[in-house]
């Protein structure tokens, strides 16, 4: 499933029905509020890694996560946090499924997520490159930077100092106007 889809209505009361708090809305709200361990200003919903939250017929809940990078060490942490959040709103049985396809892209970060990143001094990503099925051209020069604005002073006059930052998802940049270094979530 590519997008978070509307939840199915609650199943009619049966002997297996979950306790009163364990509603679809509660499940959705609890899962969406879980924070990313490495970018804690963002929720999993802001980051776009939470692909579905649904109630099953047996009263359990299933959340579907997608990883950001292949080697991201935060995935197990996210899974555990999701599990705990869903248990805290009354679900005794929680399944966290991992969906690898289609791969996560920084284009999946919501507008709200981008606003929160900028507020925290991290420049949000630009549009991820479109890929055709043919060979990917090699980029021999540092890419033009005009799209990345300094999150401190708003100047577009910024430069990349390193494509790789403190976590897999970030690049290091510097503002030529206010001289502040800053991080950017790099397009993927």
């Amino acid at each position, binding site marked *: 499933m590519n997008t978070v889809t509307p939840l199915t209505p609650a199943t009619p009361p049966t002997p297996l029905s979950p306790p009163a708090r364990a509603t679809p809305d509660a499940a959705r709200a609890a899962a969406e509020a*879980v*924070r990313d*361990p*490495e970018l*804690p*200003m963002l929720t999993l919903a802001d980051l776009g890694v939470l692909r579905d939250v649904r109630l099953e017929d047996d009263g359990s809940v299933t959340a579907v*996560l997608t*990883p950001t*990078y*292949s*080697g*991201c*060490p*935060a995935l*197990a*942490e996210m*899974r*555990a*946090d999701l599990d*705990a959040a869903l248990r805290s709103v009354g679900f005794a049985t929680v*399944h*966290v*499924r*991992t*969906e*690898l*396809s*289609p*791969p*996560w*892209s920084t284009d999946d970060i919501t507008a709200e997520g981008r606003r929160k990143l900028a507020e925290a001094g991290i420049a949000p990503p630009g549009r*991820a*490159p479109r*890929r055709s*099925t043919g*060979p*990917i051209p*090699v*980029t*021999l*020069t*540092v890419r033009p930077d005009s799209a990345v604005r300094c999150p401190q002073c708003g100047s577009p006059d910024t430069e990349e*100092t*390193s*494509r*790789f*930052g*403190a976590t*897999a998802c970030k690049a*290091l940049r510097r503002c030529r106007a206010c001289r502040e270094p800053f991080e950017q979530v*790099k397009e*993927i």
Partner: protein
Amino acid sequence: MTDDHVYLSLAEEHGDDTRWAFGTGFEDPLHGVDTTLPAGVDADELAALCLALADDALVAAQRLAEWVTLAPELEEEVALANIGLDLLGQARLLYARAGQAEGKGRDEDALAYLRDPGEFRNVLLAEVPNGDFAHCVVKLLLLSSWRLAQLQQLIGHADPVLAAVAHKGVSELTYHRDHAAQWVVRLGDGTDESARRTGAALAELWPYRAELHAAAPETRNEVEAVLAEVLAAARLDVPGEDATVPAVSGRSGEHTEHLTELLAELQGVARSDPEAIW
């Protein structure tokens, strides 16, 4: 997580003794993924392919990790470690898939830590010991150009798990190859000394392409075209094929003594207590 601070959150109760710190308590990296083998996919072939791609990534990641504390500048150290981390992540997913396909009950740890050098299938270029920084970026250019071309073709593989791992890996490898290519251009078209060192690294490593092309002939044209473009931009001459490379084949399990040394370090702790929970 109740606390916004990642390190403070480590001290929280997790209700699970095996997860004693951030990133530990590794479980199956394919946890929660539908891992049914589709009809029409040969399980042995899939296992062999995943294992070879995983071994290339693990061994290359270990060589990159050896640069930590030794790279010419902090940013570069972070970059090389990040590239290694991407490869390690790919290796974990591929080992898990290989273990499922072969059906002998081996998980990612058994495949990474409990096999002897003769059971590894990585290409020799991945195990070549590190040299100077020019050597590092030339090796990374060769390996990442080749791996990117392979992964892109594997997006169409009949096994959806391998196809998904490849698809994700393509975005990562595009960054790795660009990083290496930009350094090769900077060094090749830099000072006399940087050009000399880059040329020497190329002369040493260039003939290892033969094994890359033998292992993935379908990527040959693309890889050669990329390398020619980068060398032209770097004002470096295409070297001859006359440097000596070991007359063995990593894909057949024949390796140099360098892999034995690398694995001794990589596997030593895990083998000293195979039952330990990390």
